[in-house]
């Protein structure tokens, strides 16, 4: 167990889902992967398959059309998992909060652990958010272990 938990928290894999962002936050998420910011130094890998992932990064506004997809992606990620909402749009709807086709915030659909503010959120802030998410992740892993021992 120790080995698995350790590698889970030390090398989390992230999957990025763009709900309806203007691309501003998306390119900042991608910028995190590139040499200047390089989140791989935290052991973080970006992958396309939600079934391999531990952390879900959500950018952009949710709307009734992609809500189902978001929930689907979220459900496919195995427990324990952490959700990071990136940018004003994902946190509250941002400038688009008053639009007719926008749900104000990802947390109306799935539970969110970390909110990263900004429009567009800066790569530093995103990295900070993911690292914060990792602490939560560790707590979740420990909780799960306790439960397993309790049984």
């Amino acid at each position, binding site marked *: 167990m120790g080995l698995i938990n350790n590698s889970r928290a030390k090398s989390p894999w992230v999957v990025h889902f*763009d709900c*309806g*962002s203007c691309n501003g936050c998306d390119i*900042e998420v991608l*910028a995190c992967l*590139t*040499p*200047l910011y390089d989140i791989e130094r935290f052991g973080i890998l970006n992958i396309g398959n939600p079934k391999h992932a531990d952390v879900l990064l959500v950018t952009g506004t949710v709307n009734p059309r992609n809500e189902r997809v978001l929930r689907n992606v979220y459900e496919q990620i195995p427990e324990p998992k952490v959700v990071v909402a990136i940018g004003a749009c994902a946190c509250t709807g941002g*400038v688009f909060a008053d639009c007719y086709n926008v749900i104000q915030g990802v947390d109306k659909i799935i539970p969110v652990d970390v909110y990263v503010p900004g429009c567009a959120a800066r790569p530093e802030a995103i990295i900070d958010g993911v690292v914060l998410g990792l602490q939560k992740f560790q707590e979740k892993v420990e909780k799960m272990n306790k439960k397993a021992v309790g049984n």
Partner: protein
Amino acid sequence: MGDRRTVIPFGPQHPVLPEPIQLKLVLEDEKVVEALPQIGYIHRGLERLVKVRDFNQMVFVAERICGICSFQHAMSYCLSIERLMNIEVPERADYLRVIWSELHRVHSHLLWLGLMADAFGFEAMFMETWKIREAVVDMMEATAGSRVIISTCQVGGVRRDIAPELLQQIVKLADDVQRRVKAIEHSVLNDYTIKKRTVDKGVISKEQAWKLGAAGPVLRASGVKWDARMIGYAGYKYLNFEPVVETAGDCYARTKVRFREMFVALDLLRQAVAKIPAGEINVKVKGNPEGEAFIQVEQPRGEVTYTVKGNGTKNLEKMHVRTPTFANIPAFLTMLPGCELADVPVLALTIDPCISCTER
């Protein structure tokens, strides 16, 4: 034998494209016979926001139609309102608009090149192009204070000035980027794998491109010499440039057009810095917009058109945006039938899709 057709959903959550577009691909073995786009994942309905935001606030909303060409969206919106209200923008503001526009074009094309490399599986090149792009984005931060959404345009001019030392640094940056892009240009355009996967793939003839209403690099790669910058909006009327045209109309030609466009953009940056006059950067705007106006602006992905209609109050009556990717989708759907499944991501990327502006 029965029906050998399979339908494969491509997207909306997809490892190659960062944005959710769904294509239902009808396949016969590995060959695509039909593609049906499913849209609406990013629709926000922001054009209706004109009812609740006044025309000055709408600049920020227009800017967030697409984060990659954000400045150009803001500029197009401002240009259309200025045309409506007959506002004469100071010359320095015109030049500053060109500078920020061209910075956006360079960063957008580099971003596209990186994604393209990623679609080929060239991870190292993805990293390299994004490294070059960071220098451009840093310059935007130095001049405007923000990395992607720079919010410097306003109705009547621009919000910020660029200091002379920074202008000189822009020239230095242009030289530096030129050198670094030249270095990768050779290895991209002469690479065996890239040629194999792009030459004669997804060919759009000149007539087709024109008939399907393609825009931007897709149109120019098919041999049509049309670039909205030729109209001479903002500061382009003071600068010299030649639109980049290729004739083959395949993926390789589109790649080449974007490469050469980067150099043109860098050249425009140098010209603008050399010619920029001193003076005011904005004028006071009085009154409310009334009437109708239409504007065309060349964005990295092609031509965008803005139509605005005012009714004399501070809220516009209507705003309509036609974005370049929307214009390119018919061309894209024409390219798909006959190609192999593995080519779909590359074909999708050669139109440089921007779904968030298509669906708004």
